[in-house]
């Protein structure tokens, strides 16, 4: 059942993105920003976590889930360490993803050549 919800919710979030691509002139960079900020806001007010609890990876894998993680991390760090958490919480919670992207991209740059289409 969890898998079905992950499929449906994850697919639905992607459809919102597709509609933005096709119906507006927004570039993909802008759409990614829109999604991450939407994730932060929904995470900030506590709505998005319900979606994650319900749909699992269907809500956490889309980039909105990254935004939610930023918001969640900030709130948890404030609870734990006080005011400094405002600055440190977001990146702490998302560090694994960002570091993986940086290190693996660097490795890819070492190994691969761009290809013609």
């Amino acid at each position: 059942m969890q898998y079905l919800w992950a499929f449906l919710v994850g697919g639905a979030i992607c459809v919102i993105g597709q509609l933005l691509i096709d119906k507006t002139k927004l570039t993909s960079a802008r759409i990614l920003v829109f999604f991450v900020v939407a994730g932060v806001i929904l995470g900030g007010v506590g709505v998005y976590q319900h979606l994650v609890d319900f749909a699992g990876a269907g809500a956490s894998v889309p980039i909105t889930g990254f935004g939610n993680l930023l918001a969640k991390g900030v709130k948890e760090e404030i609870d734990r360490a006080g005011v400094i958490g405002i600055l440190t919480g977001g990146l702490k919670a998302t560090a694994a993803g960002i570091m993986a992207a940086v290190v693996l991209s660097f490795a890819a740059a070492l190994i691969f050549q761009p290809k013609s289409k």
Partner: protein
Amino acid sequence: MISQQEYQKMVQKSSPKSTTFKNCVKAFVVGGAICVLGQSLYAMYEHFGAQKDLAGSLVAITLIFIAIALTGFGVFDNIVNFAGAGASVPITGFANAVAAPAIEFKKEGFILGVGAKMFIIAGPVIVYGTISSMIVGAIYYFVQK
């Protein structure tokens, strides 16, 4: 010569629109499938004893790894060309946005090419994601008090 307004109308009439419905179906299926893959990875990591947060991080890292490998082999852009937001909205799209410029700009060297240009597309995601998380944090902090 015809007027700008008249010409704009002609352009709108003759420029084909993206086939939104078909695109949405493809985005739905591929996006859903990537999330199901994420869900099964999550179950696997949990099975091997990872805690909730750790399993979540491992899922993200695995998907990022797959996306960057596919980017290196020159496949990922074909997947996006087919599935659109279905592949670019999940974390895989973020990973591709970091890896693609890193590979492309290595011709300009490892400092000013790879290093400086790695975030030309994905940079805004980090900038606006972290800034908005700070704002959310500040509000949370003062509401709590």
